[in-house]
């Protein structure tokens, strides 16, 4: 029990330290965006990297989330004969909450961990020092492209995930439960508002930024050898995920108004 509490305490303390460093990195990155050099080529490479890494897992996550949610809602609505509303509920839940959060958690595991591992390895093999000795700022060269890549690409993959998730709901409602095809699409588009989609995309952009910030902070603070890189990697995933889940509450509050 004591070990459990102390373990929990350690995570909270580490997370608190990370928050401070995340803030510092964020402001340094913003400052560096106000003057050249800009490594546009690296920005582009990182976007492709994040997109490639995330899309497959996000597609699978979204499809099955849509399907499960449709299944559960159908059962619930069946209790008072409102199964035709399933499409509406699926669309709203998918776009506002499920895909942005679940996809971001998956990307934290895929891309955030990779960032921490890459930068961490560069730190322990003195490649980051080598960059600095050659007059190149590691924040501009390594962090900024990753911050931009995740915050631009995450909304893109979430948008695709939204469509796939809604399609997953359709598969369950129409093909599995025998609901009406026309009703499903009608109910979906009739009540889905633009703000449902955009609020999800705004969340995704912020979550993307959080993932990259934790990935870079943990990467730059790597000490020791292979073990240190391992710690940085898990730290980036844990920190990024906690950052997503906690900020999600405040973002939701803010976006609902």
């Amino acid at each position, binding site marked *: 029990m004591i070990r459990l509490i102390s373990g929990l305490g350690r995570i909270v303390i580490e997370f608190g330290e990370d928050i401070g460093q995340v803030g510092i990195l964020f402001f340094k990155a913003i400052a560096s965006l106000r003057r050249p050099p800009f490594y546009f080529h690296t920005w582009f490479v990182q976007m492709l990297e994040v997109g490639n890494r995330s899309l497959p897992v996000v597609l699978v996550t979204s499809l099955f989330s849509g399907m499960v949610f449709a299944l559960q809602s159908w059962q619930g609505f069946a209790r008072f004969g409102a199964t035709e509303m399933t499409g509406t509920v699926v669309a709203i839940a998918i776009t506002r909450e499920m895909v942005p959060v679940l996809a971001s958690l998956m990307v934290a595991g895929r891309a955030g961990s990779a960032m921490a591992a890459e930068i961490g390895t560069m730190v322990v*093999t*003195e*490649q980051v*020092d*080598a960059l600095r*000795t*050659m*007059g190149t700022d590691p924040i501009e060269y390594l962090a900024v492209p990753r911050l931009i890549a995740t915050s631009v690409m995450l909304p893109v993959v979430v948008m695709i995930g939204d469509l796939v998730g809604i399609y997953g709901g359709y598969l369950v409602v129409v093909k599995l439960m025998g609901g009406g095809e026309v009703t499903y699409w009608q109910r979906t588009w009739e009540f889905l508002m633009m703000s449902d989609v955009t609020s999800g995309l705004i969340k995704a952009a912020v979550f993307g930024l959080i993932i990259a910030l934790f990935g870079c902070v943990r990467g730059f603070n790597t000490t020791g050898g292979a073990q240190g890189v391992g710690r940085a990697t898990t730290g980036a995933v844990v920190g990024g995920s906690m950052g997503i889940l906690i900020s999600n509450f405040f973002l939701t509050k803010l976006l609902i108004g």
Partner: protein
Amino acid sequence: MDDDVFISVEGLHKSFSSQRVLRGVDLSIARGESMVVIGGSGSGKSVLIKHVIGLLDPDEGQVRVEGQAVGELNRTGLSDLRRRMGMLFQYAALFDSMNVGENVAFALRQHTKMKDAEIKDRVEEVLTWVGLEGLEEKWPAELSGGMKKRVGLARAIALGPEIMLYDEPTTGLDPILADQINDLIIDLNERLHVTSISITHDMVSAYKIADRIAMLYRGKIEEIGTPEQIQGSSNPVIQQFIHGRAEGPITGR
């Protein structure tokens, strides 16, 4: 200040948490001189040269290059100074996401307006100089330790530095490869009049490449002199170190 002094280390102190690594290092290096700093593992040699290129900030004291304190330079100043310096890292620190050619071209692409063809020529030139012509397309993971070091050397000199810093240039190489690196270092000093600071515990290398040798011991410079003076020193600490004896004042036995 002496006109001839190019780099001066003045009362440099540096601690990491509770460990006091440097406790007042004083050292001055003349233009064109090859200074070798020797000392045991963990004596703070790397920490010392990392201050020269501004990778670490001193707790106390400073490093001056041409009278200008490195720790007080702003972003641009430090970046300009670093372009005049080249550093060879202990394990070469090649960018493993880039091939050999891209590694060597890195600083040229970042800091010069050279055209692709000119960069290609320059990369070829420095790779030939280190004896690795035609290896532009190889990846760092495909190279041996000695080749990596030579690529690291090629990368460090690509911009034509005035100051070279060598972190254990011969460690981990066989004696013949080590001597090739020594020859390259001497060649660079003689042909291009580069000022250099090397840190090593390889005494063969130290005697060969040094104009002067300084020994770092317990966070301070224990003694400084020409290779002959160091060899003839009566200081028991120096004698134990250069002859690699297990018994003596360093080990307290």
